[in-house]
């Protein structure tokens, strides 16, 4: 079936009835209409991909980028700023070719597996402290507010060299900038401006007195090579790391724990064999049905996907969560198997633009799970799964609360 055969254009995102379950529509789309025409909240049309091979192909194609500022690119929302993907900010960091590669390698060396492993003890200590505070406040408790939301922002603030006192402001800014619908465009723009001002001052402070952090290190490299990142690029890099690394990981912590507790035999399997944490985290990343918008890509030239030729100027939405449930790529795709291996899910994208912070996210998720299993083995959901509610935001999927007891 080609795009033209769909009589009524599907609205995107597709609402899901249950917070942890995929929309039924996904199966039908993968089967019958893997290259589907959809209508975005802005009213503009885009093309939705739901099959593993198609999503992977488009994400891994270096010609295609998130650049949605082309005149004929679809707008995601009708707000003037167009949300995080359309913002001017996204043009400061080169998104293609040599320049992108250079930026990526400058920043990427901060996210190597070894560096992340070295951060483990600090992460674990932060997680333990947050859990202590949550336990002290008594049960039931919201695991998202108590642990999931603060931990990633603490970790990023640490990496950027942001003083601990400013963490809560950081957390609020990232929340406001990422949400396409929860706040008005004005509120989001105001948050963006405040955050920019803060980051400019932080970069200036690091230039004056370098510390042992990512920004200072990037500044130092810049001086060494004489062709480093501009202040604007440094600021946007900091903003980008927060926006990319906070809410995504925060929500994933809540969803991962909910999925593991939803069928408590999963939790018990981990208690019995904590060495499964690594593969369990990968499976939670794959199995997450409430992953949010997916990744948009703009086609600067014609591209063939599956049997369909997509014309130049098409905006494609890659739904990685739907692709991760493709039976053609994963045996028994709708079953959560904590031992699944290999697990080449597309949650972090694929290829040259795949998530820069994926080693960080993996490490945080593994540490959180290890600490929870050790400290609160009796953990359980305090409400039936059916009462879990999804957040309203558009970009990052998550649960508004994760009520637990222990």
């Amino acid at each position: 079936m080609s795009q033209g055969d769909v009589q009524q254009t599907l609205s995107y995102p597709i609402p899901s009835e249950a917070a942890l379950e995929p929309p039924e529509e996904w199966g039908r789309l993968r089967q019958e209409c893997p290259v589907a025409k959809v209508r975005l909240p802005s009213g503009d049309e885009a093309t939705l991909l739901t099959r593993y091979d198609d999503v992977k192909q488009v994400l891994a194609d270096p010609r295609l980028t998130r650049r949605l500022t082309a005149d004929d690119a679809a707008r995601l929302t009708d707000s003037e700023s167009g949300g995080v993907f359309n913002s001017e900010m996204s043009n400061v960091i080169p998104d293609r070719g040599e320049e992108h590669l250079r930026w990526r390698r400058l920043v990427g060396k901060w996210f190597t597996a070894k560096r992340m492993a070295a951060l483990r003890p600090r992460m674990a200590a932060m997680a333990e402290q947050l859990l202590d505070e949550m336990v002290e406040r008594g049960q039931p408790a919201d695991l998202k507010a108590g642990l999931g939301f603060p931990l990633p922002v603490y970790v990023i603030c640490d990496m950027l060299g942001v003083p601990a006192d400013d963490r809560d402001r950081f957390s609020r800014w990232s929340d406001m900038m990422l949400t396409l619908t929860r706040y008005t465009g004005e509120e989001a723009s105001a948050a963006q401006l405040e955050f920019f001002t803060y980051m400019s001052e932080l970069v200036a402070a690091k230039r004056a007195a370098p510390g042992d952090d990512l920004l200072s290190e990037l500044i130092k490299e810049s001086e060494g090579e004489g062709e480093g990142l501009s202040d604007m690029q440094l600021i946007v890099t900091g903003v980008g790391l927060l926006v990319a690394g906070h809410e995504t990981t925060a929500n994933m912590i809540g969803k991962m724990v909910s999925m593991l507790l939803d069928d408590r035999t999963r939790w018990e399997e981990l208690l019995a064999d904590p060495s499964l944490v690594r593969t369990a985290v990968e499976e939670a990343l794959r199995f997450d049905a409430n992953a949010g918008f997916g990744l948009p890509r703009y086609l600067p030239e014609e591209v063939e996907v599956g049997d369909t030729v997509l014309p130049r100027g098409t905006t494609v939405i890659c739904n990685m969560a739907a692709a991760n449930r493709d039976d053609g790529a994963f045996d028994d795709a709708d079953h959560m198997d904590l031992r699944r291996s290999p697990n080449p899910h597309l949650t972090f994208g694929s290829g040259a633009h795949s998530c820069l912070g994926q080693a960080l996210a993996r490490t945080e998720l593994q540490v959180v799970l290890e600490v929870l299993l050790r400290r609160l083995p009796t953990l359980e959901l305090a409400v039936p799964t059916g009462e879990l509610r999804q957040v309203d935001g558009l970009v990052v999927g998550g649960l508004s609360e994760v009520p637990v007891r222990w």
Partner: protein
Amino acid sequence: MRVSVEEARCCGAGQCVLLVPEVFDQSVDDGIVVLLDATPPEELHGPVREAAAVCPGGAIDVEET
């Protein structure tokens, strides 16, 4: 088994290093893959195949000999 890597395809995700640190490392200069052992011993073949399967850049090639 013969392992090879294509640095240009590497995106520095670090999955291979997490899985088989005996065979893969990342350069401290840019986070790009460094192959430590092109002919790993048999007990590492499983994890090496997994690393190749999950590499988001498709940068690892495994030739079974």
